[in-house]
């Protein structure tokens, strides 16, 4: 099999909006002839944008896990009710006999966000490193698989935010049993959004570019 031709080397650009391949030459300022979008060889400032968003996410990650996400109060509570954090929610499910749900929440709220930080960090380091020659394709293929995995799992972390919304909306028996959201869920939702934006900003084609 002959070596694959890469669009950038052949003077071609694939439009990121409509997918049309255009021979752009140096006339990159011109828009896509089909959809008039700006033609981009690579996503602009991909690596620095992704790093910035990832770091911001990491900052919010601490209060997201430490601060309570929900407050519940029921009749007879002498201590003014209970605060639960992300992790204590998982433990509560486990102790109530819903082990499957405990595992599910653990995956969505703890494992997926931490995986995103680690994997995107690895991708950014690998894509940003200067290479003397061409990138090793086999390694890049493995890395790009990780990237596609990140894109798929990203938004499932929103699960806990939606659960807090539904539970606090429905548990509204004034004076008997009430639930309220707490600020931790705000930080948690922010982590999910920032890491999704970071993943979107990253351009996997950089893994192949020798620089």
């Amino acid at each position, binding site marked *: 099999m002959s070596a694959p031709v*890469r669009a950038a080397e*052949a003077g071609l650009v694939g439009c990121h909006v409509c997918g049309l391949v255009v*021979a752009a030459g140096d006339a990159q300022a011109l828009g896509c002839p089909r959809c008039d979008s700006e033609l981009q060889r690579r996503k602009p400032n991909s690596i620095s944008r992704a790093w910035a968003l990832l770091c911001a996410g990491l900052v919010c990650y601490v209060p997201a896990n430490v601060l309570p996400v929900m407050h519940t109060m029921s009749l007879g509570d002498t201590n003014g009710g209970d605060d639960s954090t992300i992790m204590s929610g998982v433990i509560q499910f486990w102790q109530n006999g819903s082990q499957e*749900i405990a595992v599910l929440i653990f995956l969505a709220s703890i494992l997926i966000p931490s995986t995103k930080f680690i994997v995107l960090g690895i991708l950014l380091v690998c894509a940003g490193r200067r290479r003397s020659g061409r990138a090793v394709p086999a390694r890049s293929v493995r890395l790009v698989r990780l990237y596609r995995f990140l894109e798929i799992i990203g938004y499932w972390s929103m699960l806990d935010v939606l659960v*807090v*919304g539904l539970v606090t909306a429905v548990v509204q028996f004034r004076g008997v049993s009430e639930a309220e959201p707490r*600020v931790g869920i705000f930080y948690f939702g922010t982590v999910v959004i920032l890491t999704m934006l970071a993943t979107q900003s990253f351009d996997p084609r950089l893994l192949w570019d020798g620089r």
Partner: protein
Amino acid sequence: MRAHPELIACMSCDTVNRRPRLEPGEVAVCAACGGTLLRGHKSVQQLAALALTAAVLYLLANVTPMIGIDLSGRHSDTTLWGSVLAFTDHVTAPMALVVAMAIVVLPGLQIAILCWLSLFTLAGKRAPLFTDLMRAWQSLRPWCMVEVGMLGILVSYVKLKSLFHVDVGVGIWAMAGLAIVLTAVFPGDVQSLWSELEPSTDRDADPAAAAGPLPRSGPG
């Protein structure tokens, strides 16, 4: 500047591949990195049918209660919108906006755009605002979280069941149907609308372009 409709560039690794003609259900993968290049897309009729089904389910899911609980003779239930409003009274108010976007506003917009584009294309006309709406659809899609919302309802059900008598509303079935219908709409199905109304010279590779110097494969 020349367009090459007979080629496709891999968005994962930038390799240029020939754009294959696929039957629905077939998938073309990139020769270099194995990523999905293209899926055999649905017909415009199928896309329009899915869009209209989604619209009906969306309306049902938004007006009927999702989940309800009983406690000593008192009843409380919530709709999707209720779970948005739950955030508004507290320091968590910005999350109300996020949840509203993720499970109510953006899915609604996505479905409306889909109906608009597919019905106009079905009628053989280019929809007004075609380009803007195609672009909007593409950027909205990652932020529509109907499937996550569905899972959230199931988790909430289990969470509440240990404390209350829980009943499920009609909304939960509409939401489940909506999650399935929206999952069935692949990005490629919508992308195919770009070439649907173009003259056939663009679809079938133009001989002059095919003989051009660029698609030639070879070392380097």
